[in-house]
């Protein structure tokens, strides 16, 4: 009986495939699938959401905290006057924008320095003093309001809520297995990027619709650019790169306004903001 150890050739227990090749195939393939799933889900939800009655959205909104913040604060007489004025302007613009009858806009004025305004569930629009202070005339304010009304008209808040829930569910379902904390992060980022591009489309649409409303309301769209100038002034400190931002870049938006303004002939006059708004501005500065 012989005893010996023979040399075993290499490469039986390890695969020869280059790890980088495997990585790129997997990353690209899974990335593409993620994008596809997120896009399909977003499209499907964007369609389905329109079957949810606006009244349901309103009752949802009553439990949403954003409007709570705005409602909890008891407005002073002065602030109430501003809110009433904003509400009246919004109502007039809603008519010009042909907002469906079952939808109604509620404007909330927040006495805060934040340069921001947003539309949320149930037709609620929240506007901060910080932004109004930067607006030079009513035309810019009307542009802002019609932009937010357009969002409500396209049901953007509930669409993005639905998308958020659906995309979140899909991405969360990936977390249940494997050593996936890292790969999940990879896929999560891809998914997030995709959904961001989607909401950018909504923003562009809202801009266009707002410009059309201004055209109808004032007879021209001049002054709309002041809104974007004010916005970029407010956030110039930290301007996120285009890929990662929800809103289109200011230059892109200004260019769009420019296209609309091209139809305006001759000098136009801007409607000034009411005196109490300007007084407020002077007072707070």
């Amino acid at each position, binding site marked *: 009986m012989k005893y010996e150890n023979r040399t*075993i050739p290499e490469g039986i227990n390890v695969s020869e495939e280059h790890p980088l090749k495997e990585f790129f195939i997997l990353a690209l393939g899974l990335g593409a699938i993620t994008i596809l799933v997120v896009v399909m889900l977003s499209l499907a939800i964007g369609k389905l959401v329109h079957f949810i009655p606006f009244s349901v959205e309103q009752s949802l909104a009553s439990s949403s905290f954003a409007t709570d913040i705005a409602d909890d604060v008891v407005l002073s007489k002065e602030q109430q006057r501003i809110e009433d004025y904003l509400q009246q302007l919004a109502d007039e613009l809603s008519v010009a924008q042909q907002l469906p009858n079952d939808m109604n806009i509620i404007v909330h004025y927040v006495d805060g320095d934040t340069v921001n305004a947003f539309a949320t569930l149930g037709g609620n629009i929240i506007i901060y003093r910080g932004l109004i202070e930067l607006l030079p005339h009513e035309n810019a304010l009307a542009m802002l309001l019609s932009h937010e009304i357009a969002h409500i008209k396209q049901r953007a808040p509930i669409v993005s809520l639905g998308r958020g829930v659906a995309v979140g569910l899909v991405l969360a*379902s*990936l977390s249940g*297995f*494997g*050593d996936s904390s890292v790969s999940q992060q990879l896929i999560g980022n891809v998914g997030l990027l995709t959904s961001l591009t989607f909401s950018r489309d909504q923003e562009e649409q809202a801009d266009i619709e707002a410009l059309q409303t201004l055209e109808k309301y004032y007879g021209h769209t001049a002054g709309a650019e002041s809104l974007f100038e004010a916005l970029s002034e407010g956030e110039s400190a930290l301007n996120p790169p285009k890929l990662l931002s929800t809103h289109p870049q200011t230059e892109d938006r200004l260019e769009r306004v420019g296209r609309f303004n091209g139809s305006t002939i001759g000098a136009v006059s801007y409607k000034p903001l009411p005196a109490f708004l300007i007084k407020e501005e002077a007072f707070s500065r």
Partner: protein
Amino acid sequence: MLVTNIEIIPGKRVTTHLGMVQGNTVRSKHAGRDIMAGLKNIFGGELVGYTELLQESREEATARMVQQAKEIGANAVINVRYSTSSVTAGAAELFAYGTAVIIE
């Protein structure tokens, strides 16, 4: 190729002992299977997907071990053993090892 976990094969005589041969593999099932297994965890019972996974992995590890044995000119692997570990969740990591021999 004779693969067994006994050392003395009845009626056969080992002429040459060639040393240890080993096979290893790490495999996983696709995400769908993992999700199904997760659901099954609620109700209990056999995780068919994972049974399959481990079976496939064991077969592959054995096949690799047998290939090593073949490469060094053996015609049997005796005293085969298996060992498992879990570096990562949802994957099967299998070792198969034994002694490659020439029998007649």
